[in-house]
């Protein structure tokens, strides 16, 4: 099976500043690939290289079997920018029809279906779109021509919950139909429910590509437990996977590596009145699993400082 996206040693320098270095990436048909990393790590650089908005310093990319410079490739791609820039007095519906016409594609009906589904207002002027409506218009233009590859840059940032549900459903439909998605985010939680694999990029380098299930297993989680009465610290000491343990009267806080099983079983002996388990965030995955790879790497300090 030919890869939908294939990059070999893809590198982009902005002058002397590194945007992306030696990216080797392969996305298969029907795969949803989560592309994770903090802001400025190189996610958008990768996406813009694949779309031929910018050109690589070295290395190469093949998208849908074509050079990104070949404009035919872009007819089969749907792209949602991180921040959809809009201006002008044109009606949103007219703008979408322009995009549809250039793609030689979808009928007006398809635009209306998506607008109805997302409850988007097509009669609003582009320059006056509300934040929510802007994101909906962005989603419609990305999905409307049923592209073989969807490239979504931070698609869920700021979507209201109902639209987010609809959006995730649309991504799942795309996968069911055997089409592919490349979806960037800086929060694992935003992509883990729909992604098959995630790649983690940091300081312009791809540091890991993981199966989502495996990554969650390795993720760390901050957990807080509140009991109805003070609990003895000894009951929770030396549990497998539990560290940074703090017990203060009836409250317990700790960090869990991997499975929370041991902690849950230990806590079950007392009366738990409240439990908080924060979603593991990406930076903690960096700190726990990837910091050891960065000895001598100056940027590692920055990540730690931010955490």
């Amino acid at each position, binding site marked *: 099976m030919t890869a939908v996206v294939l990059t070999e040693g893809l590198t982009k320098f*902005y002058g002397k500043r590194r945007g992306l270095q030696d990216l080797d990436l392969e996305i298969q048909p029907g795969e949803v690939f989560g592309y994770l990393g903090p802001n400025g790590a190189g996610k958008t650089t990768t996406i*813009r290289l694949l*779309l*031929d*908005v*910018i*050109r690589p310093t070295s290395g190469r990319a093949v998208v849908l079997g074509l050079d990104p410079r070949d*404009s*035919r*490739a*872009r*007819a089969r*791609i749907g*792209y949602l*920018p991180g*921040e*959809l*820039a*809009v*201006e*002008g*007095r*044109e009606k949103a519906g*007219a703008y979408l029809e*322009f*995009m549809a*016409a*250039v*793609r*030689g594609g979808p009928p007006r009906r398809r635009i209306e279906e998506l607008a109805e589904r997302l409850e988007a207002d097509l009669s609003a002027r582009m320059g006056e779109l509300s934040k929510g409506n802007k994101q909906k218009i962005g989603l419609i*233009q990305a999905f409307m021509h049923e592209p073989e590859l969807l490239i979504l840059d931070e698609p869920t940032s700021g979507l209201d919950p109902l639209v987010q549900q609809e959006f995730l459903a649309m991504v799942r439909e795309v996968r069911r139909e055997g089409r592919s998605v490349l979806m960037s985010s800086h929060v694992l939680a935003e992509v883990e429910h729909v992604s098959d694999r995630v790649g983690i990029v940091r300081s312009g380098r791809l540091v890991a590509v993981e199966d989502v299930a495996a990554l969650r297993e390795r993720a760390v989680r901050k957990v807080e437990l509140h009991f109805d009465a003070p609990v003895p610290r000894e009951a929770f000491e030396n549990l497998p996977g539990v560290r940074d343990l703090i017990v203060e009267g009836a409250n317990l806080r700790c960090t869990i590596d991997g499975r929370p099983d041991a902690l849950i079983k230990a806590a079950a002996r007392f009366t738990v009145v409240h439990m908080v388990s924060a979603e593991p965030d990406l930076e903690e995955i960096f700190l726990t699993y990837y910091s050891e790879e960065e000895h001598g790497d100056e940027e590692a300090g920055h990540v730690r400082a931010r955490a």
Partner: protein
Amino acid sequence: MSALVRKTLGDYRRALIGWTVGVCAFFLLYLSIYDSIAANPDFYEKAALAKYPGALKDLMGGLADMTSGAGYLQVIAYQLFGPMMLIMCAAVLGNRAVAGPEESGTLELVLTLPISRRRLILGRFTALALGLLGVALVSFLLIAVMAAVHDMGVPIGRIAAAHAGLYLLVLFFGTLALALGAVAGSRALTLAVTAAYAVGGYVVETLGKSVDAISWLRWISPFHYFLDGRPVYQGWPAGDYLVLLAATAVLLAVAVLAFDRRDVGV
């Protein structure tokens, strides 16, 4: 017409209508007082010469016979005011071809459509050329009608010759703005360079006639190829107009090649 050209013309529509109305209102206002100027030529000629002494007179194109129909038409429409107003319009539209949308971020989405970089530039140029042609045609009709109504004694063929030159001059500056945007992607730089070249080119062409030190610079002024042939008086200076067309073609080629090579929006 391709979807891109239609869309670009749609984006230009309000600006085009606004500039057309403004330019035509200016022509209408000044050409409608020609009757009283023709009735008192001595008075108005003295007044004009008093208002523009010395080098200012050269800058206004000499004002030699501004009370004749052809002279008055030259001063009002084809010497300074007409070209400068329309060049401003062209620079604004040319700037909106690449530099404007690149800075505002809307160009990125257009680039992700299945349109090659070359076709994008050619489409933008086509829209620019058509839009400016619209402004030129409407203002030409207005001037032709006014010249006939007020018995200015300028044959319509001469007016057409002058207006065609005006259009080519304006298209050159619009294409210059488009090309600067395609090369550098900066709105401010585009406007600054286009304005400086227009003003400098005009000054060099008009003052260069009497100041030897800068007279050689007239060859690189686009205005030279419009004003020097005196189309209102002498009809089509075909060779000069071909120079303007060729220069525009070179700018367009530069725009296509430069934009095809560079990163956008970084």
